[in-house]
């Protein structure tokens, strides 16, 4: 069965390692914070100027001066630091963040990603996404494998305006975990109960299936 949002986040969480500095994008990526394995510690970076983001505040802890990149009220953990946007993106652009997780509209077999604009329809801006994909090699993209109408989001070539070129190597969808290299999607894991045929059918870009493809282990 296809994964739900929480399960996608759970699968991404298994990419975390003890001591990682991590930037989580808006949407499903934010949920990853709920599934950090108990035996490891990670520090969350919020690009508006916070290293060491904690959980949402209790009702009486809400602080307008303390928000995350999604403009939600948050808290800071012990050992956190605040800094300017320039310093924040020095961290990001300078490759000091160990892992970035972000959503996308489309990803293609060359690792290009489109996530910020649908011409004539949606004009919100790229925020920090272009900097994030340029800043680290270790990026996980989370998205549904196909749109509600069944159109694949894993393409031969992105059709929407790009966020970055040749920068994505890992994708977790509701159907699979795939790696991107040498101009193709490599199927590494299937969502529990999802067939290779279904994944093949919903992947428009070149898909390479080698050997036995195990089911994901969640949690």
């Amino acid at each position, binding site marked *: 069965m296809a994964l739900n949002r929480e399960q996608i986040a759970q699968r991404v969480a298994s990419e975390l390692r003890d001591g990682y500095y991590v930037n989580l994008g808006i949407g499903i990526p934010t949920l990853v914070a709920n599934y950090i394995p108990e035996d490891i510690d990670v520090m969350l970076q919020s690009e508006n100027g916070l290293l060491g983001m904690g959980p949402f505040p209790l009702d009486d802890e809400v602080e*307008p001066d303390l928000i995350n990149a999604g403009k939600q009220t948050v808290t800071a953990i012990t050992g956190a630091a605040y800094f300017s946007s320039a310093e924040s993106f020095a961290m990001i652009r300078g490759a000091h963040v160990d892992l970035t997780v972000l959503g996308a509209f489309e990803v293609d077999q060359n690792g290009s990603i489109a996530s910020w604009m649908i011409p004539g329809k949606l004009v919100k801006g790229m925020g920090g996404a272009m900097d994030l994909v340029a800043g680290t090699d270790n990026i996980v993209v989370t998205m549904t494998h196909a749109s509600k109408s069944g159109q694949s989001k894993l393409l031969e070539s992105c059709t929407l305006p*790009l966020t970055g070129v040749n920068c994505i190597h890992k994708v977790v969808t509701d159907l699979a975990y795939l790696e991107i290299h040498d101009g193709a999607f490599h199927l590494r894991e299937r969502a529990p109960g999802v067939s290779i045929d279904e994944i093949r059918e919903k992947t428009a870009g070149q898909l390479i299936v080698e050997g036995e493809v195990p089911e994901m282990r969640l949690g």
Partner: protein
Amino acid sequence: MSGFNKVVASYDEALAGLADGMTVMVGGFGLCGIPEGLIQKVKEMGTKDLTCISNNAGIDGFALGMWLENRQIKTMISSYVGENALFEKLFISGEMEVILTPQGTLAEKIRAGGAGIPAFYTATGYGTEVAKGKDTREFDGRNYVLEPSLTSDYSLVKAWKGDTMGNLVYRMTARNFNPMMATAGRITVAEVEEIVEPGELDPNNIHTPGIFVQRLIKGSFEKRIEQRTVRSA
């Protein structure tokens, strides 16, 4: 110190000289750390044809949303404007020019402007629409885009505390774009929650030294929250 007293008594004085067609930077991330009183005053002044540089464009009816309603902005340079329906309308209709700029590139362009760096290379945006018409160059096998810096006629920033000499400190994530914008303004006006005497701020922990600040005013702040998000106990 006579020559170093940056305190002004009124918003009129704080924004004296601001004129149609100027470039204005406005600090803040969303509604966090914005100079509320200065924004309100510019709305009342009705200054037009502004080039406005700010990470976001406020929300409908508040903050920079008021300048949009008033049609005071000719060109907007931002990274993310998703919170504002009127913005999208003005953009799509072509009533307002919009230069969407990646957030880190925007922050660095402003820092560079304040630091006398006319342009720098960044990998951000290479191969995307952002790089269109810009010089690119390879360093060590990777491709980069040349980004020119940004400066302003007026930078309107918000700080937590400021001493009378213009030294500023910010609080939590309300710092965001304010320190860089303070350096990049021909005239930088800081609106603060509290004005203190010189010596009350720890010289080791000044976020913006007074050399960057021309005018200082005590504001009052509503501090509206965009996304109040809580957990249960």
